[in-house]
């Protein structure tokens, strides 16, 4: 279940309450998010759409503990992250969040295996345990045979699949995807969306995805529309697509 009116029960995996996010630019106060409420239950696949500058990425950054709200609170799996210290927040991210970026953001000097292994370096897993986890993650994304390839030796779609393997390898509480298909052709984009859908249906991963792509949004269980910092539930795809254009 996903709600945006603040009426969700205390059992939601993600609870956002009265979140404002303001920026100050050239002396002017910009209100990016206003009194935002959101409840996301475990296993949900949520898509956020909205025009550029509507605050989609800002919301994702707040949910991922990369940024802090000006007002309000965010609670994930019982942990209120809004008042955590920077150090605690870093540890929390390592344990709970898997990030998937539009530009993949793989480390070019590391091969696929090493890129996927990165989050596991922060755990107490042994080398052989890390190897098992990495191989499992790369198998899920269908790139087990490419584990020794460097990013430059992979296509865009394959790079994004490695990035997804990196995001899931530590079995995080939820995945945050920022335009995961934004830099891909239609075929590769569909493969990535198939993979995300599988992660949601087969592995019951909670996924929050920002996208401009209506085809991507269609895969989500719930589509939320963000406009001028305000979240609207159940927006029709046609309306949203019109807003983007």
């Amino acid at each position, binding site marked *: 279940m996903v709600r945006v009116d603040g009426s969700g029960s205390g059992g939601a995996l993600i609870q956002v309450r009265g979140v404002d996010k303001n920026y100050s630019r050239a002396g002017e106060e910009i209100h990016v998010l206003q009194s935002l409420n959101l409840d996301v239950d475990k296993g949900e696949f949520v898509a956020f759409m909205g025009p550029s500058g509507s605050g989609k990425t800002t919301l994702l950054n707040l949910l991922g503990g990369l940024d802090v709200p000006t007002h309000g609170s965010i609670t994930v799996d019982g942990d209120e992250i809004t008042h955590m210290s920077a150090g605690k927040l870093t540890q929390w991210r390592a344990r709970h969040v898997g*990030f998937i970026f539009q530009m993949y*953001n793989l480390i070019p000097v590391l091969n696929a295996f090493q890129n996927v292994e*990165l989050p596991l370096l922060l755990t107490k897993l042994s080398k052989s345990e890390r190897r098992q986890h990495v191989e499992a993650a790369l198998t899920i994304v269908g790139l087990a045979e490419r584990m020794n390839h460097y990013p430059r030796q992979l296509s865009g779609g394959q790079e994004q699949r490695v990035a997804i393997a990196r995001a899931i390898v530590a079995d995080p509480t939820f995945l945050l995807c920022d335009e995961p298909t934004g830099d891909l052709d239609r075929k590769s984009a569909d493969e990535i969306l198939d993979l995300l859908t599988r992660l949601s249906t087969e592995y019951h991963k909670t996924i929050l995805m920002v996208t401009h792509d209506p085809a991507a949004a269609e895969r989500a269980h719930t589509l939320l529309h963000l406009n001028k910092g305000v979240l609207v539930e159940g927006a029709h795809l046609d309306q949203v697509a019109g807003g983007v254009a």
Partner: protein
Amino acid sequence: MKYSSLLFANLFRKKVRLMLTIGSFAAALFLFTFLAVVKSAFSRGVEVAGADRLVVINRTSIIQPLPIADRDKILTIPGIKAITHNNWFGGVYQDEKNFFPQFAIDIENQRMVFPEMVVPDDQWKTFLNDRQGAIAGARTAKRFGWKVGDRIPIKTTLFGGPGAWEFNLDGIYHNDRPGGDESQFWLQYKYFDESMPADQKGLIGWYVIRLDNPEDAARVAGAVDAVFANSTYETKTETESAFAASWVKQFGNIEFLILTIGSVVFFTLLLVTGNTMAIAVRERTAELAVLKAVGFSDRAVLFMVLGESILIAAIGGTLGLVFAAAAVPVLANALNGLLPVLVVSPVTLLTGVGFALAVGALSGLIPAFGAMRLRVVDALRRV
């Protein structure tokens, strides 16, 4: 160690840049080691000088002689254990480039004043009974392949006109003190004096006094100079280390020169490496942001950048030190003993390693702090 693959992968990201930076370090450390070795060679005399010895020279200049008769007057001063005298012979062996110091010595007192220069008793006995005898330092003997019993011709333009003086090598001395001089060549003063023209007989180059107590150095030095004040042969008496230091100063202010060059090298290297690390961090802004996003702490990122910088310094520094260690003996041979001892000591090596690591850490500090303070949100927005 878990992060080593990441550290090394980042290190070899730009191979040409890495090679150039390592090359800068290697060149700087090579120069640093070379300068340190030369400085050490110049100051070795000061370091190994006897604390209980005074050197008495003519107040005008060391090349002006003193009468041998002054010896007895000096011995009247309380606190003197022994006194000996030396004359500069100034010869060469076979060729002009074969320079080494030769002294006409006072055979009765030499070993009492310089006990660290050890000659086996049987060899010394032979020397005492051989008017044309000579004792060579182990280093000089090794340099020319001399053995006890060899006939050694030494040419000098200072004494006795053209032609070579012939000596029998009766013994070889070793120096008990680490780094002590083993390059001298001793001949008997009596044999030397007999060959002098009448107006130069009975003159010596300088006296060396051994004291009962090193704490009496200032008093005895003052007393010696007072005895000969306002005489034809006024004296200048100083401790052996002060004498060695003033000898070094004749070459110029070596320490200042080396410090200046060293400082320029240090700051140049700091700027070169600092710039390299700053560029490396700037190029990797997005990657560092991703590392932080997936859970790498600020401190881990700081140490990763610092580690890279220190690793470059360690590799470059080690290469420089190895090259220097290989090149110094070549230089020593080329200089033909002009400088007493050219060696890369463990202290020099350790100082070099410390210098390299310090430059590595300092140059990486600002970029590392920049990486540490990087805000993930800002960095990802720039991509």
